[in-house]
């Protein structure tokens, strides 16, 4: 088991080192996510007021679009010099490679969300500080659920020519429940009279989703990656 975590950690560290030097993924996803939020704010906010519940929807739309962009790029990098093969050749549990790529993606998306959430709060008057613990839990659980499925699909599609088209086509229908839970849970916290029990319910559903899909992805990664 220690080998699993060692390999996963090495993959995360390598991805972060490459990203710190190139800043390619974080800049493109952040710019994209900020643009999405800004466009919606110009279209929807009138005289400083946004319609109820809209902030939660826009936040999760931005996260899912930016996440899809990041997923594609993170595996595209492994494709350039066929380094994915070198990773798969390592005498380690192949699911550890998946875990490393997933954690790296979560860190990148976490960084994007640190900018994105205050921006949504500012532009849509969303009360992000009312229940910070629950909001952070929702964001972590939702992002994990989305990224767990996306990382597996991005890895599967890395050798497919039309991967950029296929990734969203496959990913969005399957992750619709994550988006619904994320949006409804966040909306329950952002509404004029916050509904904590409802937010807790959505968080519980998201955690159950995470457990199921992270387990499934770890289980299927090896057969899926062996041609």
């Amino acid at each position, binding site marked *: 088991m220690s080998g699993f975590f060692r390999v996963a950690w*090495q993959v995360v560290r390598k991805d972060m*080192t490459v990203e710190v030097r190139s800043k390619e993924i974080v800049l493109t996803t952040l710019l994209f996510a900020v643009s999405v939020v800004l466009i919606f704010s110009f279209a929807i906010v009138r005289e400083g007021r946004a319609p109820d519940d809209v902030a939660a929807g826009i936040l999760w739309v931005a996260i899912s679009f930016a996440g899809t962009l990041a997923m594609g790029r993170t595996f595209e990098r492994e494709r350039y010099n066929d380094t994915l*093969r070198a990773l798969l050749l*390592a*005498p380690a549990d*192949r699911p550890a490679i998946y875990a490393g790529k997933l954690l790296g993606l979560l860190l990148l998306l976490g960084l994007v969300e640190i900018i994105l959430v205050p921006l949504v709060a500012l532009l849509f008057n969303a009360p992000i500080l009312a229940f910070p613990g629950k909001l952070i839990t929702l964001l972590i659980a939702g992002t994990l659920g989305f990224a767990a499925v996306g990382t597996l699909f991005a890895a599967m599609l890395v050798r497919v020519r039309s991967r950029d088209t296929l990734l969203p086509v496959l990913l969005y229908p399957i992750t619709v429940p994550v988006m619904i839970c994320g949006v409804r849970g966040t909306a329950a916290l952002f509404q004029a009279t916050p509904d904590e029990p409802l937010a807790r319910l959505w968080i519980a559903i998201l955690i159950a989703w995470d457990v199921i899909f992270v387990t499934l992805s770890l289980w299927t990664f090896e057969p899926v990656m*062996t041609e």
Partner: protein
Amino acid sequence: MNHLSVVDVARYYGRRKALSQISFTCDAGEIVGLLGPNGAGKSTLLSILATIVTPSRGQVTYGDRAPGESGGAAIRATIGMLGHDLFLYPELTARENLTFFAHLYGVADVAGTVSSALAQANLSDRADDYVSSFSRGMRQRVALERALLHGPQLILLDEPFTGLDQTSTAALVARLRERQQAGCLIVLATHDLDVAEGLLSRAIYLKEGRIVGSDTDSRGLVDRYRRTIRS
């Protein structure tokens, strides 16, 4: 691992037959060349030997182990592969690349192994330069040392001489001979018959996914290759 056994291996991609009825055995201390024109199935066969691609039929046995029985990780620990693409991260330095893979391959003394690998590649003075700034020959040397970091007994090389000048080719040949003397089994796919001549212990000729000949005399390889592939 003292021998490698390939028995009736076939690989299909949909209805396309990439490999068919491939059988051969080879022993530690041999340098085996897979020779054939483009599309002959050389790279597919190397990928099967590397456990990256599963054969549609047949079996590969590594010593007394088969991938399905004892788990792929134990077998992969004995394999080092240098692909046509070099499996290196251009955004990392040579030392960082080797350190990353040394950790991944579970090497015990990472710093020491990486330093001696850099020295072996004659790149100690460029160890902290980004791989993206290296010439093809320098990258190839780093990539070869990356493949040998964990002391593999089976070394797989896909077109290792492509893009190398005479000096780099000679250095690579010397390194392969040194690994051969150490008892490693080396399987390489190449189009470079001039270099292969005199290097190989055995040549296996592939054409349209099938073995069409093999011999253990690497002298006169170019002529025999032409005769075998044309026939």
